[in-house]
């Protein structure tokens, strides 16, 4: 069969389609975005009319998938690592309700923060929620794990977490497909109390969830994705999780690894295999592309057992992604002599595109605020975060989606004037609306600028749930009609925009200003496909 050349994200998407999902839910976020984008374009998804629209945020996505699971059908949910923070309430409780139709919560972590505001390891969440986790080490496994994971989810009536990292999400390789499975038919849960988490029911369900853990461990011991590769030299055993296995094997490309290896791609940890490698070997080296989750578990707080090397003892860096060279060093190989990066090489940070509407908004905002001291603008996550950099230097915060509005409110509560929030349209509907309601209820003295470029541009121009309804939402939440101001961010409208900003800064109450103009990138893309 002809191999398909797919990104890790796409391989998983194809796997999920072939495994008969009826819905894919998610909110865009690098490096997870391509999973749903692939499904949106896929002919089988179109033919089967599989749900594939973007959700408003990660929490609504997980809940929708849980609803699909209730109805007996299979689904996946996708997000980046920080999205799981947003969806955590639904995710953790879904371990208590359990699944009916199979459900895979697919989370892409970004070690080294190529495109993220923090580094966190989703395996912690799986352990925290007592949910089994899969961690593909290559594109073919990503494909296989969609089938395997959905079957597993239905076998144990539990959601399963699938953990990606950037280097797998965004790396291509040839994939072999399997046969296509039919979708599940509608079938409600047999236990009518399954999804009702009243305390009395929850207590029973919790015991059930705890009781399942032994079986989950046994499954990990027999998993096709966990492997024990024995070898003669027992002075060290190597535990390699997920992608770290590749970096290990890269160092033994043309020779055999002398040490026993335990490859782990399914959690909870396979207890018997761990016991075997730790009793047979004198020391352990733990390789993880993320946080030292397994290392910490094995080492324990007092570190009084076997000597364990990894990120906690300095054998590997404490943070950031792994690569073949870092692993080579931990294995004691001589380091290659490397050429240096010459001094002339200058950093080239990303920047707002030429003609970007955000530029005109920031220019006007900066001018309107020029009579005040600096430090009054709370912002958020999106292309417009680049407004922190020169030449704009227009914003003073970027924390988590939606935080601009609520931080501006808190600062205003503290007496800061003016207090301005700058938030993108997609971020506004993701997590800004509830904060705006807080502002309205408290009559906070804030100016909220909702940069409406029609799409979620930072992640590649996905549809925004806010499209065409921002003013309606603000009105509905109780912002006064005369203080909802639309402007068109273009150089020729600069004076008018400055005037609008100044007027609203002078108003003591909640103002919303909506600069509206499409992202030039998505506009260009549309024009190109329009011509073709």
């Amino acid at each position, binding site marked *: 069969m002809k191999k398909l050349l797919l990104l890790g994200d796409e391989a998983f998407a194809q796997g999920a389609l072939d495994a008969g999902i009826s819905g894919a839910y998610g909110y865009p976020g690098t490096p997870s975005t391509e999973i749903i984008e692939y499904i949106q374009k896929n002919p089988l998804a179109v033919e089967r009319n599989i749900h594939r629209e973007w959700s408003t945020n990660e929490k609504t996505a997980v809940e929708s998938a849980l609803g699909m699971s209730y109805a007996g059908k299979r689904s996946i949910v996708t997000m980046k690592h920080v999205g799981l923070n947003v969806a955590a309430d639904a995710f953790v409780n879904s371990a208590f309700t359990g699944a009916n139709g199979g459900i895979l919560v697919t989370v892409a972590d970004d070690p080294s923060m190529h495109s993220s505001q923090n580094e966190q390891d989703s395996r912690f969440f799986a352990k925290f929620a007592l949910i089994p986790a899969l961690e593909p080490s290559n594109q073919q496994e990503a494909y296989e794990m969609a089938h395997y994971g959905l079957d597993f989810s239905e076998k144990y009536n539990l959601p399963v977490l699938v953990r990606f990292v950037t280097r797998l999400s965004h790396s291509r*390789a040839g994939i072999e497909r399997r046969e296509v499975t039919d979708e599940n038919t509608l079938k409600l849960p047999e236990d009518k109390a399954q999804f009702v988490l009243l305390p009395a029911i929850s207590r029973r369900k919790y015991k059930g969830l705890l009781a399942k853990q032994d079986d989950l461990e046994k499954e990990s011991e027999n998993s096709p994705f966990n492997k024990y590769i024995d070898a003669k030299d027992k002075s060290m055993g190597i535990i390699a999780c997920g992608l770290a296995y*590749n970096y290990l094997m890269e160092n033994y490309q043309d020779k055999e690894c002398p040490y026993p290896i335990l490859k782990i791609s399914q959690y909870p940890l396979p207890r018997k295999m761990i016991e075997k490698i730790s009793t047979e070997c004198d020391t352990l080296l733990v390789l993880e592309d993320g946080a030292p989750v397994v290392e910490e578990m094995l080492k324990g707080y007092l570190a009084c057992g076997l000597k364990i090397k990894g990120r906690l003892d300095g054998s590997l860096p404490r943070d950031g992604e792994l690569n073949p060279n870092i692993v080579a060093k931990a294995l004691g190989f001589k380091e290659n002599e490397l050429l240096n990066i010459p001094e002339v090489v200058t950093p*080239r940070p990303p920047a707002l595109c030429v003609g970007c509407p955000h530029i005109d908004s920031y220019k006007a905002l900066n001018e309107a605020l020029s009579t005040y001291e600096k430090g009054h603008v709370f912002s958020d996550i999106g292309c417009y975060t680049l407004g922190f950099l020169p030449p704009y230097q227009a914003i003073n915060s970027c924390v988590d989606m939606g935080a601009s509005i609520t931080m501006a409110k808190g600062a205003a509560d503290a007496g800061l004037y003016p207090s301005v929030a700058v938030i993108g349209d997609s971020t506004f509907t993701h997590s800004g609306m509830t904060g705006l309601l807080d502002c309205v209820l408290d009559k906070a003295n804030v100016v909220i600028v909702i940069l409406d470029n029609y799409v979620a541009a930072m992640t590649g121009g996905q549809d925004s749930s806010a499209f065409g309804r921002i003013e309606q939402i603000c009105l509905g939440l109780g912002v006064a009609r005369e203080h909802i101001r639309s402007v068109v961010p273009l150089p020729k409208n600069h004076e008018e925009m400055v005037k609008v900003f100044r007027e609203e800064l002078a108003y003591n109450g909640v103002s919303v200003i909506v600069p509206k103009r499409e992202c030039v990138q998505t506009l260009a893309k549309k024009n190109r496909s329009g011509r073709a």
Partner: protein
Amino acid sequence: MKLDIILAGVGGQGILSIAAIIGTAALKNGYYLKQAEVHGMSQRGGDVQSHLRISDKPIHSDLIPMGECDMILSVEPMESLRYLPYLSPTGWLVTNSKPFVNIPNYPEMDSVIDEIKKIRNNININADDIAKELGAARSMNMVMLGAASAFMDIKVDELRTAIRDIFERKGDKVVDSNLKAFDAGLDFSNKNRA
């Protein structure tokens, strides 16, 4: 056979179109392939790179080990230097000499070219000008691919076939101008190789 290439450039310059052609040729010949790309924030005019690995044996790491890369193929001169720690002592540095200036503190061009010339195996080609002279201004990437093909363990005819396969749906004219660009790059390297 093992061929590890780092493709380098600036977000928006389209380095992935080069990767797609080499990848198509490699797969057609039954080679294994892994290709790590950069998506996300850096695509807004930041530095971007792609690790392209081709081998007749299964490939483990998606990332090329530092010091072992066979070629840096860059569509921008300063960017070609950013990945030098990856280059093997016998590797080739093939770069476009036309700078892409989108930062206020872009270094002196002479100092950039001096650094490129310090690399034992280097090809430094004004691919933008060559493409323009051919009347195929948008085929700069194909000039670069042609220039690099002189040092790759893949037959140039297979790359030509891949160019045809990939641009086919855009019509004969596009195929031809890309092939012309490719050949001009190849010709340059053959004349200028040390």
